[in-house]
């Protein structure tokens, strides 16, 4: 029989929560510093959402265009993020990502090559030069397998299918561990650690149409906030322009931007390449005026400007949304993504093998012969835990965050390819930050037992209720509500309605009743995910209410332009007391001022 107190306890120097790219890279760094490292993942090792990344990782190695360098990459990232970025993160990312990619190669990654044997780089939206190191359209798999194999070869403890419920403090309020349960047995386990690195990924599962797996429930975002950290930019959600729309059961599954990078174009039901009608002033000087010019660019970037299909994702997603609303959509409510008429079948199968496979098997569509039907899908959250760029430290001592769970790097909109490089640049920095922090620690820590007991009692409560709600009903309603009220285009009244409804959801979650036992019970697992989903959804809705402008992954129909004052601030959220039902405080936080020499880079070609 399962017991109601922890049956196991483990001690580590560094405890890493999440086993995607950022978590694994942090683990490698901390191990290399000679520390005892434990990794916890709620899935099996190697299944994290990183595996879904397709197109590549952005790094200004200059293998295809020698003109490329970190300064151009920095500029592209800041412009893509509509200048809401933490400039220092964007700077470090642009400077360090080439070394991180070469490092992966030394650990076994096998990237596609240029003719002269260097790592090949591909074009993606918002990047001035071909910059994405890649392996066909399965780059995320290559990244995670390489890091996984490195971590395993270093002999790291990995706790698989173990779900963390809450972070734990010590007597001084520093982070000192976590309480979790094994999914297979339902038994509780506690961890003490001198430092904890959150690398838990995103939040997309709170929307109805998403490219995210069941794991994207914002656990790290929420746990950090409950533990005293601050979340920023939570209104900035990336709706990837190209998700599958049909059949309904696969709606939301990602179609890589690599399709457009490799020559694919978007057309409406009238056959028009409509993106030419949606070039914002900010991007006009660097975007092709005609189809002919755009097509020349694919051959040689000096011979023309980039086609508008390769504008940053927020621009493309909004344009698709507008076309569909104007009645020029495809039969299932998307638009057409056409590479069949533009590239030979052999090229498509070689460059985009998993897209070929995915459409053939799931939709019965041969992408070498027919256009794909696609539409926006909730993909990525730019917002996250506010961290120090150099160390990945949050404001809570002992707590670090890297990857999608951290905020700031991507500003209001992330460029494609900047996520995988973010993971390895800041995963490493989180490992370093944690190791440096531990060196300065003094005294011993005692875990706050009250927090352990509370988390366990809360997790078990749904088993003790005779009558109550099915967690799946709550999840479905939440997804539909967030999609309708805090989706790709928002208005003040809908966002206000969402904030109000989310309070009802809090009550509903406190009335969940579960069937079955604790052993590998997905209903229970969902019940323990829902508090996180609600916390991040509340922050997204509140941020969307307060940012009365449109910027990147946040579009307000009632405030379509940008606002000068809001261009200088993040919207931040904190919660009172390690408690998911606590009241949230939302306020404006000034952005870091950009040093003059970096600002000059942004002015260039503006």
């Amino acid at each position: 029989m399962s017991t109601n107190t922890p049956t196991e306890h483990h001690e580590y120097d560094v405890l890493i929560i999440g086993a995607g790219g950022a978590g694994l890279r942090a683990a490698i760094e901390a191990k290399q510093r000679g520390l005892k490292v434990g990794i916890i993942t709620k899935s099996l090792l190697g299944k994290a959402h990183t595996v879904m990344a397709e197109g590549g990782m952005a790094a200004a190695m200059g293998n295809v265009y020698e003109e490329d360098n970190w300064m151009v990459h920095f500029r592209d990232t800041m412009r893509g993020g509509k200048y809401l970025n933490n400039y220092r993160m964007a700077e470090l990312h642009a400077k360090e990502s080439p070394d991180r990619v070469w490092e992966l190669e030394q650990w076994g990654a096998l990237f596609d090559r240029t003719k002269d044997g260097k790592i090949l780089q591909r074009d993606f939206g918002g990047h001035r030069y071909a910059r994405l190191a890649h392996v066909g359209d399965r780059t995320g798999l290559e990244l995670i397998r390489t890091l996984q194999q490195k971590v395993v070869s270093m002999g790291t403890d990995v706790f698989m299918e173990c779900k963390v419920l809450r972070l734990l403090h010590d007597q001084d309020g520093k982070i000192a561990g976590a309480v979790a349960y094994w999914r297979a047995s339902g038994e509780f386990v506690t961890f003490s650690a001198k430092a904890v690195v959150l690398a838990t990924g995103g939040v997309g599962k709170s929307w109805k149409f998403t490219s995210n797996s069941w794991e994207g429930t914002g656990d790290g975002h929420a746990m950090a906030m409950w533990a005293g950290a601050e979340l920023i930019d939570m209104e900035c959600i990336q709706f990837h322009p190209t998700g599958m729309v049909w059949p309904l059961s696969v709606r939301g599954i990602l179609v890589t931007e690599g399709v457009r990078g490799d020559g694919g174009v978007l057309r409406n039901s009238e056959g028009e390449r409509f993106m030419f009608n949606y070039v914002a002033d900010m991007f006009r000087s660097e975007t092709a005026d005609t189809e002919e010019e755009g097509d020349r660019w694919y051959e040689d970037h000096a011979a023309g400007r980039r086609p508008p299909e390769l504008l940053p994702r927020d621009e493309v997603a909004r344009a698709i949304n507008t076309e569909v609303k104007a009645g020029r959509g495809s039969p299932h409510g998307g638009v057409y993504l056409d590479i069949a008429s533009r590239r030979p079948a052999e090229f498509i199968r070689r460059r985009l093998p998993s897209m070929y496979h995915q459409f053939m098997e799931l939709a019965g569509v041969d992408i070498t012969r027919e256009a794909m039907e696609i539409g926006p899908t909730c993909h990525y959250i730019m917002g996250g835990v506010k961290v120090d760029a150099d160390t990945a430290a949050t404001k809570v001592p002992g707590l670090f965050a890297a990857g999608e769970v951290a905020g700031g790097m991507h500003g209001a909109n992330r460029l494609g390819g900047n996520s995988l490089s973010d993971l390895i640049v800041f995963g490493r920095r989180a490992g370093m930050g944690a190791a440096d922090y531990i060196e300065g620690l003094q005294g011993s820590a005692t875990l706050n037992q009250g927090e352990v007991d509370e988390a366990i009692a809360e997790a078990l409560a749904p088993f003790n209720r005779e009558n109550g709600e099915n967690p799946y009903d709550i999840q479905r309603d939440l997804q539909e509500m967030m999609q309708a009220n805090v989706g790709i285009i928002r208005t003040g009244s809908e966002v206000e309605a969402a904030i109000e409804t989310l309070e009802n959801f809090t009550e509903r979650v406190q009335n969940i009743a579960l069937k079955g036992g604790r052993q590998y019970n997905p209903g229970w697992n969902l019940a323990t995910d829902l508090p996180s989903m609600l916390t991040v959804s509340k922050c997204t809705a509140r941020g969307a209410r307060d940012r009365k402008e449109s910027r990147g992954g946040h579009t307000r129909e009632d405030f379509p332009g940008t606002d000068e004052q809001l261009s200088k601030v993040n919207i931040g959220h904190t919660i009172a007391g390690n408690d998911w039902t606590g009241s949230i405080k939302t306020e404006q936080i000034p952005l870091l001022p950009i040093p003059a020499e970096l600002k000059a880079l942004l002015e260039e070609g503006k």
Partner: protein
Amino acid sequence: MSDVTMRIWRGDSTGGQFENYTLEQNEGEVVLDVIHRIQATEAPDLACRWNCKAGKCGSCAAEINGKPRLMCMTRMKDMPEGPVTVTPMKTFPIIRDLVTDVSFNYAQAEKVPALLPPPMPEGGYRIFQEDVERSQEFRKCIECFMCQDVCHVIRDHEDNKQHYAGPRFFIRYAELEMHPLDTNDRRDLIRKDMGLGYCNITKCCTEVCPEHIKITDNAIIPLKERVVDAHYDPVAWLGRKIRRKTKVSAHDAAVQPAP
């Protein structure tokens, strides 16, 4: 659309039984969609493992009408008339319902000696596309472990797990052996400890691979040639291949038993 009956194995390590769930079908659904609908309504405690739902993570492997498949890539419309039977992978111990304990595979992964590359020159290694392609094929592996599930050597003989790595790890070893940067020599390990000789080349693994990796032809056979050439008799191998039956005992089939 018409209703469908799902016949799902439910239970744990102590035993279990089939339970039937009858529900409406929706257009375009895959088996995993139907399982999810059962979870969301009748059986929130129905255990199944999944992540990406797009054939990229390999989490949702199960046996559908007796054949190992990814539930997320198996369309309901391709199923024959009548109930659809879903059972957990047979080769691994049951945790609950459709979820099995696949730790055997993670234990095997720990035994693999890592890549040992030469120091990287300034500006990165120079490697040509044709030299990365051989290993790239094996790196497509999504670790669904269906090749392990279907391999007779361990499917029918629990004892063999102690000295047999299985097809997933044979392609891993082949990948490293063919890796353009690798300088490690694993041939002795593969021959002595990984049980490569137990594989009798029935190609069941290749047949179930959702990534269409030619496990037998491109990895196992070249690996065998590489590590057992001294002991290896191609005529005997061919004879066994021609005479192969649907089910062969691992011991009968062993080309080169582990010492």
